[in-house]
């Protein structure tokens, strides 16, 4: 049975899993952005916090995704919220790191010009630092989202649904069609997310040219 035939018979299920998958990625990426952006700004402002915060997010990144999910089950139980928590932890690093890098990368002379002309800290951040750092920050978000699409397939292992359901089912029954039925749309989803965010980057981000 080809993948297309399989989809023909299980269209409803495919759409459900796809929706679950996208949901996991969107929610976790949004949370990672909401947490990561202020955290990145904070470590950019307070260099003393940089090492512990970036170090911690780095350590989380090195934990294999299946192990992280396993570790979170005793805390959050089984299901989508545990998966979202794990995805947020993974997505946090690129967002925090790139926000920090984008802001600290702003030319000190520009920052000093802003201060010197009487901009407050908040005005400088909102009108100068964040707009100039937007490209680097968005690049981090892009990495976070693409990684999330991949890691979200593992979420099926703890009953969070998503396209990983096909993959795990395929692995368990040694059925290549099923594995592909999950893997192909997951890969396409990653490409689509990457493309859309790239488009947003070109639209939103100022660039000298």
């Amino acid at each position, binding site marked *: 049975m080809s993948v297309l035939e399989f989809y023909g018979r299980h269209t409803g299920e495919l759409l459900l899993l796809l929706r679950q998958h996208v949901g996991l990625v969107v929610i976790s990426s949004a949370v990672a952005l909401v947490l990561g952006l202020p955290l990145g700004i904070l470590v950019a402002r307070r260099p003393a916090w940089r090492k512990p915060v970036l170090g911690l997010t780095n350590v989380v990144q090195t934990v294999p995704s299946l192990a992280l999910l396993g570790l979170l089950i005793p805390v959050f139980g089984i299901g989508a919220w545990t998966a979202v928590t794990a995805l947020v932890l993974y997505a946090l690093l690129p967002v925090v790191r790139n926000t920090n890098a984008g802001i600290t990368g702003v030319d000190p002379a520009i920052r*000093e*010009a802003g201060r010197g002309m009487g901009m407050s800290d908040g005005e400088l951040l909102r009108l100068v630092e964040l707009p100039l750092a937007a490209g680097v920050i968005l690049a981090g978000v892009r990495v976070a989202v693409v990684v999330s699409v991949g890691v979200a397939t593992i979420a099926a292992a703890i009953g969070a649904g998503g396209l990983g359901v096909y993959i795990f089912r395929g692995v368990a029954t040694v059925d290549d069609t099923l594995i592909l039925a999950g893997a192909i749309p997951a890969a396409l989803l990653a490409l689509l997310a990457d493309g859309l965010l790239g488009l947003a980057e070109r639209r939103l981000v100022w660039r000298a040219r």
Partner: protein
Amino acid sequence: MNPVLDVRGLGYELQRRTIVDGVSFAVGPGETLVLLGRSGAGKSTIIKLINRLLIPTAGAVQIDGQDAGTQDIVRLRRRIGYVIQEIGLFPHMTITENVGLLPRLEQWSKERTAERVRELLRLVGLDPDTFDARYPHQLSGGQRQRVGVARALGIDPPVLLLDEPFGALDPVTRAELQREFRKLAATLGKAVVFVTHDVREGLLLGARVGLLDGGRIVFLGTPSEFRASALPQVRQFMDSAA
């Protein structure tokens, strides 16, 4: 006449090294004081001590009779126009946005801000209709410097500080901007402090010239007094220009 800017016994130490030492001067409305000196003499440091980008370790600065150290730092800086070499413009903002930034932050209405921006661009010799939507990188160095001056004048501050504003320009553009700035300064009625290492520029623009050496003012007087001075540091500077 009361000075607009009054600097008394200003000093700055960094890691036990004295960068600025006992600097005093006063600048009245419509007057341009030039601070002259070689690199590392403390010129830029003095400017930054006035707008408190650096905090003085000795002495005091008064603006319109008010002590700068006791004021809210943002309010203080908005009363002091600040022009630096061309990097100072915000690269992601158009010329209009750059020049209109302070009026906007001061909650001016859109119409009033737009009118002010046009007025300022005309003042510094740029046609508002040609330049308003351009970005800094689309301008020549001289045009950028004009915008820098226009931006510093945004909300009409009584004091204007310029730190080597024409330092990165070619000689022809530089001479042109010097001539125009001289005219402009004469009409604006601001207390201007102009930092340069170029003695010709200093003598052309300054009503008075202060020569800095090792963080101290070793000479303070009019350009003709400067030319006539027998002080060795002054002679050295005059000879370098000859």
